[in-house]
């Protein structure tokens, strides 16, 4: 993991500027990030050990949480970083779920491998769809993604081999010994959740990440500065499809049942939007925080059905209008904490050990209009 690597100056002497300005270099990471790295590794290791010490039902509930984290991370990658608001990610969740069945039951590939093949299938399908949807902007892009999800759902519901409207049982996964299945699904779910975070972080750290934030803040300016807007958006869209596909396959392996109305449900999008709006747009921490809060709400309130959804809708509207940066936005506004080193800060050469966060950071990620 390269978070520690980021502790040294990014780019080395090449980025140093001398002359009238005091000498400085650009750095992403601070000492805080070393602490975060250590704590994150400990948390992941602890999470990995959870199924050894708890019941099957707790383990399966935790898999739901991992799914929510991955879903929110992918939705935020699209909406919060690339400005692509999708209300159709359920298309790829459903493709992931049905992909698991297809590779596992039809092609007899081990379900654990099938999860990743299903995710690859989702990414493959996203590739030709993206250019078509990119012809639409803003809200119309959003509805376009929805139309695509509806199309896939109708096809799956009307084809007999996929079980029609009543769906299928994923037999290849159901036939696994129970412990192997639960433990395996749990670890794959954890991998997908952690992977979605690392993937987002790696993408944002790269040159492409800068391009993305530039596009989100001002597409025209980014384009005229030489950013390839189309390629950047395409990469994000395909990556998000991959992540949602993996997440859909994990959920399907957890439930063992796939059904068009559930796998392609618009509720997935409702959850994603709710989590990101609560947790905070445009950060990696926000969706994690949001997913945990949402998970707690779901565990306690989802029995109330429509009332629960009504409450979610009201909360989403209130948060989006009153607290547009979400709860994590409140945290950063107050303490300027960034757990994941994706921002770049200036460090003066005279005090090379000073943490970047105490200097004036270049507000790359949070340029406000």
């Amino acid at each position, binding site marked *: 993991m390269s978070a520690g690597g980021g502790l040294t100056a990014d780019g080395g002497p090449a980025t140093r500027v001398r002359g009238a300005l005091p000498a400085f270099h650009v750095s992403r990471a601070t000492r805080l990030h070393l602490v975060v790295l250590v704590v994150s590794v400990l948390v992941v290791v602890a999470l990995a050990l959870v199924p050894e010490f708890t019941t099957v039902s707790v383990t399966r509930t935790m898999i739901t949480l991992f799914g929510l984290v991955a879903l929110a991370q992918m939705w935020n990658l699209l909406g919060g970083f690339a400005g692509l608001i999708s209300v159709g990610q359920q298309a790829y969740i459903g493709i992931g779920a049905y992909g698991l069945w297809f590779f596992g039951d039809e092609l007899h590939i081990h379900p654990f491998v099938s999860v990743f093949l299903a995710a690859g299938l989702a990414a493959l399908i996203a590739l030709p769809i993206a250019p078509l949807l990119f012809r639409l902007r803003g809200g119309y892009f959003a509805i376009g993604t929805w139309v695509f999800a509806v199309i896939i759902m*109708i096809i799956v519901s009307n084809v007999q081999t996929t079980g029609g409207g009543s769906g299928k049982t994923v037999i290849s996964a159901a036939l696994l010994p129970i412990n192997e299945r639960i433990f395996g699904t749990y670890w794959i779910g954890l991998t997908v959740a952690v992977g979605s975070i690392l993937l987002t972080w790696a993408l944002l750290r790269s040159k492409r990440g800068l391009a993305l934030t530039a596009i989100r803040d001002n597409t025209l300016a980014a384009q005229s500065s030489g950013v390839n807007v189309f390629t950047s958006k395409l990469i994000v869209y395909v990556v998000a499809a991959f992540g949602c596909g993996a997440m859909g396959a994990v959920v399907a392996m957890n439930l063992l049942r796939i059904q068009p109305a559930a796998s392609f449900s618009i509720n997935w999008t409702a959850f994603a939007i709710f989590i990101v709006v609560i947790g905070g747009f445009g950060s990696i921490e926000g969706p994690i925080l949001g997913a945990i809060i949402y998970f707690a709400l779901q565990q306690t309130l989802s029995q109330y059905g429509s009332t629960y959804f009504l409450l979610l*809708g009201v909360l989403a509207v209130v948060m989006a209008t009153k607290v547009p940066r979400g709860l994590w936005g409140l945290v950063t506004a107050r303490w300027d904490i960034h757990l994941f080193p994706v921002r770049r800060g200036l460090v003066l050469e005279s005090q090379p050990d000073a943490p970047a966060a105490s200097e004036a950071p270049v507000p790359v990620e949070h340029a406000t209009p």
Partner: protein
Amino acid sequence: MNWVNVAVQGILLGGLYALFAIGLALVFGVMRLVNLAHGDLGILAAFIALGFVRSGVGLPVAALLSILIMVGVGYVLQRGLLNFTLGTDDTRPIVVTFGLAIIIQNALLLKFSADEQGLNAGGLETSSIHVSKQVALGVYPLLVFILAVVLIAGVQLLLNRTKMGRAFRATSDDREAAELMGMNNRHIYALAMALSLGTVAIGGIALAVRTTFDPTAGSFNLIYAFEAVIMGGMGSLWGTLLGGVILGLAQTLGAQAFGSGWGILCGNVVFLIVLAFRPSGFFARTVTA
């Protein structure tokens, strides 16, 4: 000859989709807002009318009351909520209107349950005229189509000839310049939303008389309205009628050719084809934001 019948049905169905599409196109044209709750607001109007009918009011009065209420809802919703989401970034209006859609759907589920409902127009909805021995025209779909034509002509007239229409066009072209000229954009936007919800209320009630409906029917109608707008070409009200007709034709002919389950898919596929080969639609007038 059956195919002619089916095609006629499809064309007339386009009128219903246009009723939903007018308001969506209008609001986008005036303030670049895509209202994801648009379909659900239409269904809300149908349920309000149903509520009045159940309390003993006749359907025409119930429909009129529902439309007036939705006009009021539109104004208040825009001034009290949606105006605050505009001009920031693209995300907020989408999230807020999506949230609204969820709120409306679930509030209706709580109040009216998930049961299918219907509005009875006293046999009007089932009567038909025989044009020839083989071709029959449904009276009600024909009326809905005529209503769509009249409504589009009316809104177009309002946009072209009235002071309010001029204000709509001015804010649409340049909101800041309009503001500098002394116009109150927040009021103009609210008027546009009031008009939009008035038209979608007509659409919702027209749908409710035609078929059964339930609280979740809104999302499909949003999608149809959206497809009609894009295929017709953004910024053109008559284009939405054409888009609606193309969609209606694709759905009914598709259902006839491949079986009832595939009709809606055919509509969606035709939309994707238009998007691929003619992305600005057939009558595009304004450039997207």
